[in-house]
């Protein structure tokens, strides 16, 4: 069964590492839906979040092949653990005078933000998981989306269960 997986990687923060990871996917015919990479608090280490899809065998191969790369330090399939996922999206939407109120209401409901205003359009910033972002975009479509820019997903495992019971876990 083909499923979507979110894979988190710790990699050496060196030139060429992104090419190695991306090349592995293209060379072996795996597909990347989104890929995010940035430095961690340790400047020698970067974190990558890759969203990919495949059946169990393909995902197993992807993870094993990633682990074989010398510059990859750690690979975690977050899909199999409890985790949080977020994406930030900028949406430029037509804002005709008769629609402005409705757009603003929707933005408010989704706890999104208007970050740029012009006579004919708004730029909305929204963060959230896949479901929330997908729903928001659907609601904006009837007004006319002029442009869209997405960061791709970033993800993190939730803190271990034990601490959860101590009430330190926040559900966003």
């Amino acid at each position, binding site marked *: 069964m083909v499923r979507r997986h979110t894979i988190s990687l710790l*990699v050496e923060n060196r030139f*060429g590492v992104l090419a190695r990871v991306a*090349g592995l996917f293209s060379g072996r015919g795996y597909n990347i839906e989104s890929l995010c990479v940035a430095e961690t608090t340790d400047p020698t280490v970067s974190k990558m979040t890759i969203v990919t899809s495949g059946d169990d065998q393909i995902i197993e*191969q992807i993870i*094993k092949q990633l682990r*074989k790369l*010398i*510059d*990859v330090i750690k690979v975690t399939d977050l899909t199999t653990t409890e985790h949080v996922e977020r994406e930030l999206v900028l949406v430029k939407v037509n804002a005709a005078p008769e629609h402005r109120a409705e757009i603003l209401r929707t933005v408010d409901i989704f706890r999104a933000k208007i970050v740029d205003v012009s006579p004919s359009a708004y730029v909305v910033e929204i963060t959230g998981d896949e479901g929330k972002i997908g729903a928001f975009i659907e609601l904006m479509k009837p007004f006319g989306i002029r442009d869209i820019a997405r960061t791709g997903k970033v993800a993190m495992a939730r803190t271990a269960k034990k601490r959860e019971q101590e009430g330190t876990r926040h559900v966003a």
Partner: protein
Amino acid sequence: MTGARIFLEALKREGVREIFGIPGGAVINIYDELHKDSELFHILTRHEQGAVHAADGYARSSGKVGVVLVTSGPGATNTVTGIATAYMDSSPIVVFTGQVPTSMIGNDAFQEADIVGITRPCTKHNYLVKDVKDLPRVIKEAFYIARTGRPGPVLVDLPKDVITASANVKFPDHIELRGYKPVLEGHVKQIRKALDIILASSRPVLYTGGGVIWSSAAADLTKFARKLKIPVTNTLMGLGGFPGDDELFMGMLGMHGTYAANMAVTHSDLIIAVGARFDDRVTGKVEEFAPEAKIVHVDVDPASISKSVKVHVPIVGDAKRVVRRLLEELKNVPQKEIRAFQKRTAEWRKKISEWKETQPLRYNRSKTRIKPQYVVEKLYELTGGDAIITTEVGQNQMWAAQFFKYKQPRTFITSGGLGTMGFGFPAAIGAQVANPGKVVVDIAGDGSIQMNIQELATAVQYRLPVKVFILNNRFLGMVRQWQHLFFDKRYSETCFGVLPDFVRLAEAYGAVGLRATRPDQVENVIKKALDVNAPVLVDFVIDREECVYPMVPAGASLKDMLLV
């Protein structure tokens, strides 16, 4: 010290004695330094591809890391086929390429190529060195990565300004690679589980590959197989990993495997795979591979396990360590149980003997035309099997695999994964450099030999008494065979209209050229070739339309074999 000096010192610290290469502008400073150095021996090949295959043959025949040094641009791109060949067959080589100065990189400078980018998918790892201070560490890591875990090629790109810069450097004595920690010890619980399954099986087969050769597990594996009397089949890469003349040996399996081996796998209830990767040329139609069997799979590369077939007992670890542990665990098994196992599996061995007897490897003998199989058989007979055999790719390779009995690991050297024509001859040169006293024979075809024939000059220059046996059918034989069987004998572009006179060509290079056109000449010509202490090229004019059998057509199930 200059970068060039640091480079040579670092090589020596890795125990390097021989380098295969060709100089050029970007590495001229290294070659100048090499000129002053008496400890390192450089073998000048005539093409960079030849240098890489030679280093590969050196590595495969000795287990040591092969080293290549070439210049930037075309020098570097010429190594790619060789690197990809080594990558597919897990051969440990380190390739050093010159590069334009760091300030020029990306400017489309003269003889610039992004060789790190080009070889990223066909190396185990590669480096662009940007600072001379990194050189000692990078070289140490390169050798370590090449020879450990699942071995493989590593490329190090050396910009000219890094080579010419000077620095005070310290040579590290240990390595810290947080992203690279190969698992060598197999999980004990898994090993015990494997042994339980083995002892409970009735129709077991040991299926072993190149991993057994690379990890030097052959002796222990042979012991294990004999102790339990488990029949053994080898992959092409695994030949020599179990004595080819042993009673338990079934021969190679797969597309051109023996009837016995393919039938055994098909009817087996337990496949014990060691250092093999269930390649498509081995499994045939994968859905119908070993349909009744459970599978135990030992491999140092976790990604090889459950890649194409589902494995019941996976064991990640070095083949030798895992097999040794299996032998240890076997000591705890009561003799009575072992005897019971041998008794229970006796019927299975009998069945296999029947398959061996009814359908042995065979060919139609001829008194008038030289059969290629006959040449290989005679070579085996006259050397007593005591030789290193390399091959090109195609029919010559399969006949060499089928009709010579390999008794020792590292005596059969062939491009299995990539299937590189032109591999065998330079690989034989490398094998001869690593094994000066040994008989080294490249079993070649007339097509393949032309792909790196320029290395005759190398063999002559360094007095390497390599023998090349060309099984000459004036065809690209294996492709012709497929056209014969599956394309109504439409021999599209497989027939050579022109071939060189190989005897005179050998002589032109200063080598010895011999020819046999009739079966009764074969023995004498082989004897003569083996007697001469010089490179010899032998042109065996063989039966043109001979095919390699048995054959499992591509994509068919192993049980659907075309026999002779």
